[in-house]
């Protein structure tokens, strides 16, 4: 009997398995292909805006993604450097096979107790509304387990479209899984149908890369994982180019053959990731769209054509491609395609990612409505930790919106009615200034440690660092010198001011203060780069950070105010019709969740509060 069985070995699956083992559960990972863990099905890159922050959070929670990225990274770039520290976003090109390899090595080395079973799950068995076992195709008896984490990606009733041809598959040459969809339906879950797509892989030797704009790794050294200290791979460039009117013309002429346009695909694709045919048709005034050739890996014969996602017939993809600069002789290694798959609407989930319907069943990744490796990874980690914590009868791991992108993601999933694959953006986080890539450990260290996801040594190190940051801030607030000792001093150079005050000026950096004041300032304090960065941001953004922290404080109580899942919304008079319907559908777990449901007004909430009090006799607070 397992404590936790994970179905699916993608990014959600491996983080779930690793997290469950870290917490201390007897865990098995069920996958169709043992040697294809954590495959990068779309672009060979990790991170980017908001996603880079998510990887840092996964790392802070003891996950694998950051370290595996560093082990396979062949190009590092920090996006948004000029726009402020909260939106700095780490991104890396990785070697596609190297990433899978890194994950497999990490699991083998760190999680030897994890059972990896190569088999296909065909049904999830339940008794009295609780998971009991997983029926597989290859075993005569079910795999008994206390909980199941379903991370099936695009495999549930996966249907691949290339032009007018379709075939059932989860990834290009990998079999779809249909029985599990029936199993979910049988348990009473509603299913949605989402769509996503990927661009063609182009044969590298057929492209004249000399004619394209080269984009290299940046010189600055930084890493995704706290444990990485160097670059592990030789760095490689990408190549930028643009589409042109000629290519657009080919696409336009045969737009009727696109399954998205001729009605073959009815499911909803992500608007933030449109196909090239979408871009051409929706923005006819734009003469060119940017594209990037990304290496599939070192020595790999293919390039990934970022920006050219398409489900047009292969010959149209090729025709359009060959009209681009340097691509006259291009050959396609594998055409772009669209894939449709089943999704459980994530309002079915609690914030532990356990379903409200079936005890012990957790969902993570695309099956729960998201898109992206990083989004899948953080969910897998949260689900894996919580499944294990539940079996071990310990406190669940809840991430708040105010402390992490992971919290924003989970909260959005359970409160929004999503109608397209959900991707993280920094603009989804109302406390964006606090959720930075540089402070993930400080934000999540305590929760990670309490859940058993990181060691006490690591937690101690995190605490010591936070402590040093605080001591620096205190020092800067207490040391007062005349302005002229630090900068020209404006109208009143003799005026004595505290250093933190002067640091609000862009030219007054912490390093400058250290250089100018020496041991008067640094006595008893050390200043490693991570501390310096944290101190500078805390001091220069003080007013803004304070504002956001006050706001968090103000609404904190609402998350603590629980609503029982069985609360009878029909027994309450006074709700608006829209609010009643929303509340019944979503069954919010907390007052805070209820407040974020679209259509639930402050007066609906006031009424809800009154009746919560009535039914619970005061336990609501």
């Amino acid at each position, binding site marked *: 009997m397992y404590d936790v069985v994970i179905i699916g070995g993608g990014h959600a699956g491996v983080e779930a398995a690793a997290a469950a083992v870290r917490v201390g559960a007897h865990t098995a990972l069920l996958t169709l292909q043992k040697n294809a863990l954590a495959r990068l099905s779309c*672009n060979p890159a990790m991170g980017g*805006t*908001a996603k880079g922050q998510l990887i840092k959070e996964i790392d802070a929670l003891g996950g694998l993604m950051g370290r595996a990225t560093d082990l396979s990274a062949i190009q590092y770039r920090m*996006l*948004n450097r*000029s*726009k*402020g*520290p*909260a*939106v700095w*976003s780490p991104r890396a090109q990785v070697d596609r096979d190297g990433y899978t390899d890194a994950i497999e090595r990490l699991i083998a080395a760190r999680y030897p107790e994890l059972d990896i079973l190569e088999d296909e799950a065909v049904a999830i068995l339940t008794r009295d509304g609780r998971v009991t076992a997983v029926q597989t195709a290859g075993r005569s008896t079910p795999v008994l387990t206390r909980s199941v984490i379903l991370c099936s990606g695009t495999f549930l009733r996966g249907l691949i479209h290339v032009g007018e041809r379709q075939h059932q598959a989860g990834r290009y040459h990998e079999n779809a899984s249909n029985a599990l969809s029936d199993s979910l339906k049988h348990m009473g879950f509603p299913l949605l149908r989402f769509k996503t797509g990927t661009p063609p892989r182009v044969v590298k030797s057929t492209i004249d890369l000399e004619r394209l704009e080269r984009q290299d790794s940046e010189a600055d050294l930084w890493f995704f994982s706290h444990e990485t200290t160097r670059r592990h791979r030789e760095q490689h460039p990408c190549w930028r180019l643009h589409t042109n009117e000629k290519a657009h013309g080919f696409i336009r002429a045969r737009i009727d053959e696109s399954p998205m346009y001729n009605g073959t695909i009815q499911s909803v694709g992500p*608007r*933030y*990731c*449109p196909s090239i045919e979408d*871009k051409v048709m*929706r*923005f006819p005034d*734009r003469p060119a*769209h*940017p594209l*990037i050739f990304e290496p599939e890996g070192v020595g790999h014969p293919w390039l990934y054509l*970022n*920006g050219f996602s398409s489900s047009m017939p292969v010959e149209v993809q090729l025709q359009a491609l060959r009209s681009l600069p340097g691509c006259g002789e291009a050959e396609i290694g594998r055409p772009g395609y669209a894939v449709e798959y089943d999704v459980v609407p994530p309002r079915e989930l609690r914030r532990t990612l356990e379903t409200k319907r079936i005890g012990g069943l957790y969902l993570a990744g695309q099956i729960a409505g998201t898109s992206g490796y990083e989004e899948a990874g953080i969910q897998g980690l949260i689900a894996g930790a919580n499944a294990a914590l539940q079996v071990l009868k310990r406190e669940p791991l809840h991430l708040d919106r105010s402390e992490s992108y992971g919290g924003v993601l989970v909260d959005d999933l359970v409160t*929004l009615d999503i109608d397209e694959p959900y991707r993280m*953006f*920094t*603009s*989804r986080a*109302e406390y*964006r*200034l606090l959720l930075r890539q540089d402070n993930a450990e400080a934000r999540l260290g305590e929760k990670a440690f309490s859940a058993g996801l990181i060691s006490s040594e690591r937690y101690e190190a995190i605490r010591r660092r936070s402590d040093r940051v605080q001591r620096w801030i205190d020092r800067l607030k207490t040391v007062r010198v005349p302005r002229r000792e630090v900068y020209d001093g404006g109208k009143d150079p003799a005026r004595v001011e505290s250093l933190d005050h002067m640091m609000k000026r862009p030219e007054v950096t912490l390093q400058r203060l250290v250089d100018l004041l020496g041991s008067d300032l640094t006595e008893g304090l050390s200043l490693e780069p991570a501390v310096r960065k944290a101190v500078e941001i805390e001091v220069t*953004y003080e007013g*803004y950070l304070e*504002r956001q922290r006050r706001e968090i404080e*103000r*609404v904190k*109580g*609402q998350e603590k105010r629980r609503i029982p899942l069985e609360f009878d919304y029909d027994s*309450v*008079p*006074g709700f608006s019709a829209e609010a009643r319907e929303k509340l019944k559908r979503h069954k919010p777990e907390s007052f805070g969740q209820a*407040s*974020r449901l*679209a259509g639930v*007004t*402050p*007066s609906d*909430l*006031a*009424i809800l*509060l*009154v*009746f919560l*009090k*009535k039914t619970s*006799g*005061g336990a609501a*607070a």
Partner: protein
Amino acid sequence: MIDSVEDTIAAVATPEGNSALGVVRVTGPRAIDIAGRATDNPHRFCSFNAREANLVRLVDEQGHVLDQAVALLWRAPASYTGEDLVEFSCHGGRAVLRSVYDRLVDLGARPAGPGEFTQRAFLNGKMSLDEAEAVAALIEARTTTAVRAAARMMQGGMRARVEELQQRLLDLLARVELSLDFVEEELELETAEVTINRTRSLHDDLTQLRQQFKAGRLLREGARIVIAGAPNAGKSTLLNRLAGHERALVSETPGTTRDYLDVVLDWNGLPVHLYDTAGLRESADMIERAGTDRTNALMKEADLVIWLVAPPEPSLPPSSLSAGPPLLRVVNKYDLSPGQELADRLEDVDLAISATTGEGVESLQHLVSDRLLEGYNPDSVILWESRHDRLLSDTSAALERAITVLETGSALELIAVELRTALDTLGQITGRSHSEELLHHIFANFCIGK
């Protein structure tokens, strides 16, 4: 985001309209602290016994007296709401009640929602469970009233205007967010200069909108018009002329008017509170100086100041007034030749009158109402709620901060913070939330995604 149930809330508890007394109350964990800080002696306030009436002076930020009031305080849990509770019985009049209420909000209280005092009473166990439905019904009813009131406020194109501003703000923020979240799409982004200009123009239009709301308030609550100027410029004579009877004490000795006088008038349907003030001049006389202080305070709070000058030497309005209410510069004693010479000599004179003969006084009345109701469309019924004004003024403040941040060339993420604050605040008027709308707007209007 909904309002918390743990913070401190304030409300004007007595119904709208002028009455002899009005009650402003505040409840919550910080009620006594906030209420105390609204008085001239917070320390003394905190030591008051519960359920004992005490006379207090309510003051504004600068220490100017807003009103003298009777304060009653209850300590948790022995109060109606079960939390600390303070009630101020003030001298009626919406203007006074509003200024006290505004002061409490400035000090950190949140404007209470419909039925919220009762709701707290219930939540804190001050009512039996059977009353839950009654409370719900009350909330519902109050909300309906509020909705109806809001609908009335929003008639005559006002709602459309707020929504139009919202839409523009959304677009502005979307463009900023676009450049933060979609960095590799090579989108043609706006220059900082364009963003500043768009923000400024939004701010200007918002100011205009507030102006229009203000006209509505003036019609209901009356305009506060202050007659000010140097000693012996003829202020009291003008007041008497306007009031139609001898109200203020008039004498030839400069500085006769020691305190301000208040006359309520009706000018073509616009209720007017007319204040005569002590002449502004340097004075060694303590009583007169006190009068001057009050005059300054009064002018700042006024909706319009009539600045009266008379020969021989025209005095200038204090510079502190430049950011204050609109000012009409009026030359008095136009019936005499020194007055006429002065009017000819001075630039930017709005009007010349003679308070003694009444010449030009009617024109003055028209000029005042024109100036105050500028941009106001008499066909639109505008219901004024302090909540709306506060939200508009908060929106305006956030936009001003955004402009400052833009001008200093700070990081784009900070501009986003201010614009988002502005948008959220405006959204509280129309009840529209924007978190999802923002991304919809981006997806719909820009070619993003790889």
